[in-house]
């Protein structure tokens, strides 16, 4: 984007970058955390192993979301789809907690 002529006024570009940055960090962390928890609950291996697998993978999730936040055509899409996936993961975690409590 640098060096390219962008038509939008400066404040809109600023708001766009801010929305993406917050999505990259905030949403990225939220999705990584939820993915770690969902994998820890749902992987069909012993609890300790599932916990560890979910946690190990979570950083890759964060990096992918952060890149997507800046690659998506519009910032609101990131927020919309991101929140959708987050709620899906939250429901999955909640269901598994209903079925089997924590140790």
């Amino acid at each position, binding site marked *: *984007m*640098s*060096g*390219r002529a*962008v038509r939008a006024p400066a404040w809109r570009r600023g708001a*766009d970058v801010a929305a*993406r940055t917050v999505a*990259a960090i905030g949403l990225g962390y939220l999705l*990584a*955390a*939820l993915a*770690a*928890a*969902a*994998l*820890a*609950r749902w992987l069909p*291996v*012993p*609890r*300790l*192993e*599932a*916990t*560890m*697998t*979910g*946690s*190990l993978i*979570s*950083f*890759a999730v*964060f*990096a992918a979301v*952060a*890149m997507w936040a*800046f*690659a*998506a*055509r519009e910032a609101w899409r990131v927020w919309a789809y991101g929140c959708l996936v987050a709620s899906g993961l939250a429901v999955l*975690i909640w269901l598994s*907690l209903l079925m089997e409590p*924590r*140790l």
Partner: protein
Amino acid sequence: MKGSFRQSMAWLHTWSGLVFGWVLFAMFMTGTASYFRPEITRWMEPETGRPASYAQAAQGAVAYLTKTAPDAKSWSITLPDERQATARLFWRPAPTPGEEAPRGRGRSENRAILDAATGQPVSPRDTRGGEFFYRVHFQMHYLPVLQGRWVAGLCAMFMLVAIASGVVTHKRIFKDFFTFRPRKAAQRSWLDAHNLTAVLALPFHLMITYTGLVTLMGLYMPWGVAANYKAPETYFEAMFPRAEEVERSGVAAPLADLPKVLATASAHWGGGRPWIVNVSNPGDASAVIEVTRHSGDQLAYSGGTLTFNGVTGQLMTASPQPGPAVLTNRVMYGLHMGRFADPILRWVYFLCSLAGCAMVATGLVLWTVKRRSQLPDPERPHFGFRLVERLNIGTIAGVPAGMAAMLWANRLLPVGMAGRAEWEVHAFFIAWGAMIAWACARPTRRAWVETLSASAFLVAALPLVSAATTSRNLVSHLMTSDWAMVAFDLTLLALGGALAFCALKAGAYRTAPKPRRRNRTEEAPA
């Protein structure tokens, strides 16, 4: 974002790299040094002797502890390996009647450092040694420890993002592997240098960043644990099973022969090295000896613990084999720490890690070089540009200068000085800050040349400073064939030489000439 996927990734790479670049540079530099943490500690504790076998050190440790703390609740002995010259001991005194728990382990009166060979106590000068570079690498300084670790984590996370977006940005990744055009236009050369240092060691950079995050995963990403365990303690018990603490029986019994126990442990591990020895209730019939394997014996950082009867010396239990995911975690940890590496591989680690420093540094410089020609008036850049430029100079020359200043302080501060270790650390930050101030006060080119020269001098003069202030010097190390310390001095000279070379190059550098007509063979810059 507007534009193609690659363009948005190039933008992300540029800006995340800039924002986190300075802290990342310091993290890379101190992390690089940490591959030689035991050697740095040895250098900074000239009062200590030479490495010796762990069996010899164990004998000395038991003799010392039996004399000093026969009734302790427990002893802990960290045995030296072939890179360390001392055994480090601490003990928990037996709780006096009416006292709830035995007094804490942190007390200095419950600690001792023994010479590995003689078993005699040594009192090296007050210093953090190589431990400082190791700690500051992931938890900063002057910040509460947890906050510092979050700062490091955020930087590492964006390092990961910068690497991934950098790879995407880079469509000619294979071709650039063989491309270095030092005499082309400035921007092209800096780009080549950045690509070269990044691509050459790319697997290393990716590995070190990801595994770095994994080392502090419990702090950064506790949600998997929280999803499965009500209390974190339950998780830790599953992760690190520990034997129950046993009360003293009151029946005296001599402790089993520790060197023999260690030999049994080593045989059990197929020749592995014992590292940490815990003895509970020494001198009592209920004594238990726990032997933990050296973390550098295998790729996996944790080699397991064996429990022995403390009187008969019989092997009682071994820690269970970890499952595949836990083992993966330990291997990632081990890959980051690099303790398993033999000397040659350790140097490969060191060089790849230096390439990482160069990658960050050239990336930071590239940011300014690329923008200078696009400025409305390159002679009078705006504030943001000048700030980036000064911080680049002050940090790239300042961090090595700071690290050297700490070693200078180690040799020059009076041995008995109060707060000595902390002042060595202050010297690191004072020198770094001074370099930034210097960079702000001088014109760009002069600032590069002068700060890099100062940094080169501080690093390269260290062998001389050491020779002038202690009995340690290159000749004495050669005479006693102490190759680790010989290599230490030579490495300082080489690093100082490299910085001096950079200073020379910066002096001969001419700001980008007006872009000439494009050569047909040249491709558009990435």
